[in-house]
């Protein structure tokens, strides 16, 4: 394996982690919005606070990791994507800022009316951010970012593939979050809440599945290079993803949310990995390959070293944090 490819894969690992963990955090915004009035939604909103409170900042750092690795490892392709996709990136950024601030402010709001404002900001922007990040992915995957970065500021992300990718991203986030929240509520012994979440998640899961299947044809027509990869090299991954989704729904319906969580993660992770495999060897589809975009070799080696150090320094405490939040002492609030 070439060193460029190794760095690209290290970056991709971060992307998958962000999609899964960050995605689950974003998706909880959907349940927050639909939780109902202050009294009716109180239990669910408290559960959301409790589930994502300790982890959202750590999950968010995956995005920083991806950005930094990208601009360090593949600087010119980064600059090109940033220049062409400035608008959706800025919208996503606005969503990220409002979500973080809204979440932190809501928890310590003195009055219900302030908490409402902050809560609406948190929940609404939790859906805005993944939508626009999805359009960015769609724009890159459908070959709309030219190597010189002079792509059209609007049509590059206002097109079939990008918009569908945006909607699918939101749906996947909501599905992931639903399984996570159901599992958390079950473990904490909030049975009514868990039942309600399970019903919602099953609906979200069905809609997500329909969206993914329904968008296959339009994406195939709109993004031929990606489609070729998806039906070729990446086909097993896509099949895994579909299977994972179905298994997750079945497990959830049978009231086994912890296991459903695992299959939901498999479903989402394999669709992302499938996307990467489908567009290999392109970094910016039809424009720049991974090896063309690579920065200085010394830097790539240093980046791999940092990724390895991250594996040693970051992963164990991250696992510790997740295990703590899953323990019984932490389940009660």
């Amino acid at each position, binding site marked *: 394996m070439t060193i460029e490819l190794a760095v690209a894969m290290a970056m991709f690992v971060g992307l998958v982690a962000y999609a899964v963990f960050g995605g689950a955090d974003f998706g909880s915004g959907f349940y927050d919005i639909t939780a109902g009035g*202050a*009294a*009716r939604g*109180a*239990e669910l*909103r*408290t559960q959301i*606070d409790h589930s994502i*409170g*300790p*982890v959202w*900042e*750590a999950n*968010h750092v995956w995005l*920083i*990791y991806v*950005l*930094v*690795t990208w*601009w*360090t*490892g*593949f*600087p010119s392709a*980064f*600059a090109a994507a*940033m*220049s062409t996709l*400035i608008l959706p990136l*800025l919208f996503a*950024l*606005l969503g*990220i*800022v409002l979500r*973080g*601030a809204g979440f*932190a*402010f809501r*928890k*310590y*709001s*003195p009055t*219900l009316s302030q*908490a409402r404002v902050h*809560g609406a900001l948190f929940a609404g922007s939790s859906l805005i951010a993944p939508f626009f990040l999805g359009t960015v992915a769609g724009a890159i995957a459908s070959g709309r970012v030219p190597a010189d*970065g002079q792509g059209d500021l609007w049509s590059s992300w206002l097109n079939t593939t990008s918009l569908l990718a945006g909607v699918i991203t939101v749906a996947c986030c909501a599905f992931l979050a639903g399984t996570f929240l159901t599992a958390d509520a079950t473990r904490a012994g909030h049975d009514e809440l868990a039942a309600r979440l399970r019903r919602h998640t099953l609906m979200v899961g069905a809609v997500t599945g329909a969206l993914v299947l329904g968008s296959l044809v339009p994406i195939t027509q709109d993004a031929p290079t990606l489609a070729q990869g998806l039906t070729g090299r990446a086909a097993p991954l896509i099949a895994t993803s579909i299977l994972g989704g179905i298994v997750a729904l079945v497990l959830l319906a049978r009231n086994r949310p912890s296991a459903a969580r695992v299959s939901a993660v498999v479903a989402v992770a394999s669709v992302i990995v499938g996307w990467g495999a489908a567009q290999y060897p392109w970094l910016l589809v039809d424009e720049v390959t991974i090896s063309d975009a690579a*920065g*200085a070799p*010394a*830097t*790539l080696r*240093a*980046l791999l070293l*940092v990724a390895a*150090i991250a594996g040693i320094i*970051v992963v164990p*405490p*991250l696992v*510790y944090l997740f295990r703590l939040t899953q323990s019984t*002492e932490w389940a009660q609030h």
Partner: protein
Amino acid sequence: MVAHDALSLAAAVDPAGLLPARQQMALTLGWHIILASFGVAFPAMIFVAHWRGLVRKEPIALVLAQRWAKVSAVLFAIGAVSGTVLSFEMGLLWPGLMGTFGDVLGLPFALEGLSFFVEAIFLGIYLYGWGRMPPRRHLLMVVPMAIAGVVGTFCVISVNAWMNTPAGFRIVDGEVTDVDPWAAMFNPIAGLQFAHMWVAAYMLVGFTIAGVYAVGMLRGRRDAHHRLGFLIPFTFASVAAVIQPVIGHLLGGGLGDRQPAKLAAFELATTTESPSPLRLGGVLVDGEVYGAIDIPVLGSLIAQNSFTAPVRGLDTIPLEDQPPVNITHWAFQTMIAIGTLLALAVVVYWAVRWWRKRELLDHTWFLGFCVATGPLAVVAVEAGWIATEVGRQPWVVYGVMRTSEAAGDYPGLWWLLAVTAVVYTCMTVGAVLVLRSMARRWRQGEHDLPSPYGPEAGLQDKTAGKERPA
């Protein structure tokens, strides 16, 4: 020269994205740096309070630690999102810089990302760990958080230092070659610049938190709680304030060789004089200095560590390589003035306390001054950054790349600036409202600050439904 100041900020040939991009960077960085300082320095203070509470069994200290942890949850959250804004902006606003030098300056950023990970993970554990894990282990969770904050600061400052003293690459025929990311990261002034910022963060946070308790004492709440809440941060800030002028002086040494135009602007040196005076105040208008107070020889002594060595004058530097002089000069002197004042003030406080056995905290005027020290330290940090950043102009990478080459070409960036200004204003207002309401509820004797839509509301709902039939 005022005309020149204005010109160099908005020359007609510059890309349309340049001026708004600079203002955007200034606004968002200027905002982030205040919150980031809390991320750097607050954990150490929380640690001391928590340690005293737990190991020395002082209940007051434990309450302080719990409250500070809650405050830091709010501050760190908006610190993290404002930092994310910067990560995006590096690429969005400066494609020329990141496209060309991304692989040169990326390594410290990557390591910075790593330390943010560590910081965020242990922050999550610490904030939610109260009462949920063994107390001593819980206390230890602050340590990695504090270390990660320091490492992260070094990394990000090393990027800024690299822009001042570029290293770790060569330019051959217009192409960047021989990239050595480690040499770029450990560039000549990275260490000192880091030390300066690190200490500045302790001043900012220490004086600000101490000031909050000074307000309480001024309003008559002179209990042990307020004294301890004042003394812990004030002690940190005192040490920092005394060290800071020394580090600043070391940082300024050699500036005449590194960036002569910046030093000339700092010192308002229009011509090369030997020995150079120290010029206080004053403005440069059409090449003439008005209203300055000159102290002979001191300029050479401070800037060059010599009785005779001159500060190179602006007249030796081509006009197109000069920074906006007045902004740089005033920002620099503001920082120095505040730094000197704060260092003197803390020396006086501790000297009076130790040798005269008198407590200045019993005097209203001193408490009033303490309330002002927090904002003063904030102004010093901002002024310091303005001095470094504006003083480096017109270069983004000193001597290598001009800022105009780094900027993108979108005129629409003014919209972005307007939106950002609105969002950041709202975020500031939101943070102030929430923090003040937390303080108010604590004063009223509430301890845990449950969320208003919290379990109680949910429980009432349920019990209402359940209990009625019974």
